[in-house]
């Protein structure tokens, strides 16, 4: 659907060159909710603007459904843009137009007849749950409502792709949830491919199926959300994960545990179906030792279980070692180093 081939974008600011995007390659497939996460200044905003040609790449190719964007003349590019919806962090609604006039605007650009426009606007406002606000002006709406208008407006021309530029970053947690649900509905019911950028881990976790992590203009890690977040390779990825999911108790608690003469701790990670098997109790019973869960969680990530437990084992040393050895062949297990964490 969207293909980035070795794309770079360099800005010239005064006498300095700023490489906002460096040699980025990835594919967004039809039906994806593809998330790009990164701290501010990572180049995400530039990256998403390359997709609809608001920015032109310095190097590399961008293909939209196999159409190379860089070969298009301005008029052709405008035609392509009409099939790519975009929503923004600050909503960017026309303050001089009512809600329905905002949603109608892209249809006017496409010269859709008046009766058809009215029907479409009505249907879209129904879809985003704002039918009663048709005659209001943006200033009279809450942030969440404004974003719903933004989404309705982006959907007006029946796009195949929806770009979300930090669409929830200006919203409170509850409203963020509502808007994310709406985006999921857009993806599921209308079959629209979504590319979103965000700095919030929660957004990626709750709606995306695929993710790319960006840092200083580069994509440092990408893949399925479940895989990437249960087995992060890069320090920045780990940092994003720890923002929503604390995998270990705090150092103070660990020190206390050690001071009280607690035994060695092990972190066990269960993925997918592993989380539903009674692995821990089966293996420990076999080696005749006890286990004690001192910290952990089992959560849902992309409709799969993801378990993260910190346990101690009580029993004969040999038996404990043998037990850990056996567990290693089934799940991820590592010793928790109380001193450095």
């Amino acid at each position, binding site marked *: 659907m969207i293909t980035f081939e070795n794309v770079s974008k360099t800005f010239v600011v005064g006498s300095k060159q700023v490489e906002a995007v460096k040699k980025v390659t990835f594919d967004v497939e039809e039906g994806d909710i593809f998330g790009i996460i990164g701290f501010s200044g990572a180049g995400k905003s530039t990256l998403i603007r390359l997709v609809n040609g608001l920015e032109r790449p310095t190097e590399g190719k961008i293909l939209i459904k196999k159409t190379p964007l860089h070969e298009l003349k301005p008029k052709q590019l405008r*035609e392509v843009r009409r099939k790519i919806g975009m929503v923004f962090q600050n909503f960017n609604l026309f303050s001089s137009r009512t809600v329905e006039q905002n949603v109608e605007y892209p249809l006017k650009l496409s010269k859709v007849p008046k009766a058809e426009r009215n029907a479409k606007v009505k249907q879209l406002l129904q879809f985003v749950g704002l039918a009663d606000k048709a005659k209001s002006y943006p200033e009279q709406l809450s942030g969440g409502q404004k974003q719903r208008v933004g989404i309705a407006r982006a959907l007006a021309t029946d796009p195949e792709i929806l770009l979300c530029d930090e669409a929830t970053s200006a919203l409170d947690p509850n409203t963020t949830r509502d808007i994310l649900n709406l985006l999921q509905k857009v993806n599921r019911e209308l079959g629209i491919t979504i590319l979103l950028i965000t700095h919030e881990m929660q957004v990626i976790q709750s709606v995306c199926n695929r993710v790319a992590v960006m840092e200083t203009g580069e994509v440092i890690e990408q893949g399925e959300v479940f895989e990437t977040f249960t087995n992060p390779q890069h320090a920045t990825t780990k940092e994003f994960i720890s923002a929503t999911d604390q995998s270990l108790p705090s150092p103070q608690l660990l020190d206390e545990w050690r001071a009280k003469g607690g035994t060695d701790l092990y972190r066990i990670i269960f993925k997918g179906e592993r989380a539903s098997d009674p692995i821990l109790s089966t293996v420990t019973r076999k080696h005749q030792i006890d286990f004690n869960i001192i910290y952990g969680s089992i959560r849902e990530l992309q409709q799969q279980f993801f378990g993260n437990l910190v346990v101690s084992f009580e029993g004969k040393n040999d038996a404990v070692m043998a037990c850990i050895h056996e567990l290693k062949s089934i799940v991820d297990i590592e010793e928790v180093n109380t001193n450095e964490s």
Partner: protein
Amino acid sequence: MKVNWETFWIRIVEATGETITMVLGTLVFSSIIGMALGILLFTTREGNILENRFISALLNFFINIIRPIPFIILLFVLSPVTREVIGTTIGTAAAIFPMTIAASFVVARVVENNLISIDPGVIEAAEAMGASPRQIIFTVLIPEALGPLILGLTFVTVGLIDFSAVAGTVGGGGLGHVAMTHGYQRFDSSVMFVTVVILIILVQLAQWIGNFLSKKVMRR
């Protein structure tokens, strides 16, 4: 020599009509020219939808040359051109020409300033929706800035009432001319008083209409 008010009031009515004609005529022409120049100034700025360094620099240079010239000097400097275009340098029509020139550049700056205050994100949104530069100008820039634009034009109108009095003293007619010839040169304070009161009323009226219209279109 004092005027005879029984016959002079008709002259005041005429002069008021001349002033209004000069102001409204100038307002119409300078709004059209100034709007076009202001939009060009804004859209050719760096990073904007019609970015063009050459046009931008040229326009700025030209405006910055015309604007600092005191209006009374500009009147004299332009008088050969006025004679060429209008056919005379005396009368209301002859005053509208230099007034339009001077006011157009003021309007251009007012328009530019109001357009700059539009959230660039809104323009970007329209671009993302596939709007052409022309569509952005007419469906985003002008409607989004209309409220402040009306206030800006009101400000210019009040300035034009002032311009018209100056133009009046050099043959343009209107209240300025009357105040000068009958009030000032013949020491008739009653004429001076009446013309000043009428000018104040005109300014108030212009401001009131401007406020009313801008309030009608403003949604922020």
